[in-house]
């Protein structure tokens, strides 16, 4: 245990003393912060920026918009629309004057022939090709729709969403299933999949470069005369894992701080309901997934003669983690308890990402996360032990070109 601690501490100190590490650790949030500030400054008033800010900070204070109703269709503004949000003007001249004075952000003109053409003009001071309507376009659309239907709000609601399906699942009880009608909730599994993929890959890659470098420095044989391969590998996995986790926390924390510094409060939109257990399972699957992939990367680093060759094969090793990315926004949402989603989340090599994607979507039977974690833990133990044992063969294979077949054979102890 003492030697594991010595290796662990050495790895942490070595990594923290590298300028390249700090460049990546601080550079990424710095660049993100600068981009964030630049975009915020340039597009402070643009609809895009406000839409983005709404995602992260909830609805911002809306500036009123106006309308000129030349077809006399809008007889009243529905009660559900806050007062003062939509202002009526008798003609375009009055609306333009209000726009020039900054009383309104933009205004709509409902032409006389609206019922024939269905066309509406939207007048605003700036040109934003990405924006399809104003801040209140949804509100004005709603007001127009209600008035077109004779002021019947309920009828208007039904026209908007005629199919209010109540989903009754006969699957075993679990957490609430995903709301497939919500686009934000729809993309949540994708975001979680991506986040976990990068967290695990980033941390595991540290081990690949570490072992490759030690091999290139020809230190491995000296180390193996002082520690066992298992002690060496365990110390490295733990040390680099802690640094990787710290780096991820720093990145996420910096993002959070930047949000707050820019005057925005980080709150997830109400449409996204992430289960409370997600954080706990997140830590579990990160640690186990990291242990598996860091070991595989260590093996790759031991087999390959240099980092360049090792990097060429990384894709093959990471493939099981990449596969769930293709299914994250489709299978995990549309059929989260189906064969593919369940299979991927129970298969140990894809479980760290796939199970997290399913958990973020919700509706996972309670017994599946622990089973998946158990299978993953078992795999982690086997792989860590197998890889540690193969550090002996590393010296033997030193200098040879890396072959995927050799890699796979050594993993099952056949080479």
């Amino acid at each position, binding site marked *: 245990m003492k*030697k594991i601690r*010595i*290796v662990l501490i*050495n790895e942490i*100190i*070595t990594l923290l*003393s*590298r300028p390249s590490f700090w460049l990546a650790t601080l550079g990424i949030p710095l660049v993100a912060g600068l981009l964030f500030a630049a975009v915020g400054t340039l597009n402070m008033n643009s609809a895009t920026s406000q839409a983005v800010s709404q995602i992260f900070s909830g609805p911002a204070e809306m500036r009123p918009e106006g309308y000129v109703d030349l077809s006399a269709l809008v007889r009243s503004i529905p009660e559900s629309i806050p007062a003062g949000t939509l202002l009526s003007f008798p003609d375009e001249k009055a609306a333009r004057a209000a726009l020039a004075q900054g009383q309104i952000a933009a205004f709509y003109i409902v032409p006389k022939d609206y019922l024939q053409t269905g066309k509406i003009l939207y007048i605003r001071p700036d040109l934003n090709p990405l924006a399809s309507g104003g801040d209140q376009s949804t509100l004005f659309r709603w007001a127009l729709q209600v008035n077109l239907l004779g002021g019947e709000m309920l009828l208007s609601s039904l026209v908007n969403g005629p199919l209010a399906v109540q989903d009754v699942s006969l699957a075993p009880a679990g957490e609430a299933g995903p709301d497939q009608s919500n686009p934000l909730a729809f993309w949540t599994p994708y975001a979680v999949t991506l986040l976990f993929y990068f967290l695990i890959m980033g941390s595991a890659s540290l081990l690949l470069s570490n072992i490759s470098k*030690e091999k290139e*420095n*020809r*230190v491995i*044989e*000296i*180390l*193996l*005369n*002082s*520690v*066992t391969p298992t002690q060496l590998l365990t110390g490295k996995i733990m040390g680099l894992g802690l640094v990787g986790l710290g780096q991820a926390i720093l990145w996420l924390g910096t993002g959070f701080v930047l949000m707050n510094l820019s005057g925005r409060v980080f709150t997830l939109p109400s449409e996204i309901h992430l289960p409370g257990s997600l954080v706990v399972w997140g830590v579990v699957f990160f640690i186990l997934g990291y242990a598996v992939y860091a070991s595989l990367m260590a093996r790759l680093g031991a087999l390959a003669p240099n980092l360049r060759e090792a990097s060429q094969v990384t894709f093959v090793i990471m493939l099981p983690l990449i596969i769930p990315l293709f299914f994250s926004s489709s299978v995990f949402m549309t059929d989260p308890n189906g064969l593919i989603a369940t299979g991927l989340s129970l298969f140990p090599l894809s479980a760290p990402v796939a199970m997290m994607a399913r958990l973020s979507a919700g509706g996972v039977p309670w017994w599946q996360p622990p089973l998946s974690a158990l299978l993953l833990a078992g795999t982690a133990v086997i792989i860590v032990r197998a890889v540690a044992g193969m550090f*002996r063969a590393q*010296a*033997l294979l*030193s200098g040879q070109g890396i072959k995927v077949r050799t890699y796979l054979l050594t993993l099952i102890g056949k080479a």
Partner: protein
Amino acid sequence: MSIVEITNISKSFGPVKAVDDVSFNIEQGELFGLLGPNGAGKTTAIRCMLDIFKPDTGSVAILGGAMNEAKKDHIGYMPEDRGLYQDITLERCLNYLGSLKGLSPAQVKQSSEIFLKRFDLTAHKTKKVKELSKGMQQKAQIIATLLHKPDLLIVDEPFSGLDPLNTQLVKDLLREQHQQGVTIILCSHQMNLVEELCERIVLIDHGRTVLYGSLDKIRRRFSGHAVSVQTRDTLPSLPRVERIETINGSFKLHLAPGSQPQEVLRLLVEQNINLDSFKISVPTLDEIFIRVVKNEGEGL
């Protein structure tokens, strides 16, 4: 008492038999030479000895039994294919390697200061290893091997990359360790140094033991039937001498079967030859090495 007992070990890598039925013993406090041409199987034999590789057959006993974790702290190993962490300071590198051998930070500091001073590296201890010259890195490597005062020292080509001054320094250090009772296994191609330092050797070629035993006995075994004579006179043809060879100003007289060196000496004196020296001709280890490796298997 044997510190290392290698008994009939063999190790193959695929179709290549790197070590083939090799056996030798190393006694406590001995300075032992492990020799062989490139690719002979020396490194594989050492790796088997240190439990880095498991031999396919045969057994290894080291420091009185099978290798275990505690024993590693009593062994200093400097492999031929060696290196140090390049991106950290020499001081930190020694600290790390010393602590892995079970030394406390204070012990590492004390021990490394002594060796750094002796190898004239104190002024360089805060430099990154990659900033040191090849010779300095070589010396640093030797320090890392000795920091924990090992009982068994295995050094593979310790003189490579060193200038004559530092070669002498390492030679003195090995002699000093030997005098202090440390068992040393020296692998080297520099036969003159092995000859100078070692008492016994094993020569491996193509994975097999081709020579093993006391250096003195081996030399005598290969001395043949000749005497070496140094004189300013011209040597006449002599009875009982088959042929005369001139080597660097001295003469090597190959005796006829059944002749004795004393007889030749008497004949030389009788013929009034002024002798500067007269000795039994003994081949150098270099000569033996070349002869054995060239003629391996020819009745040795």
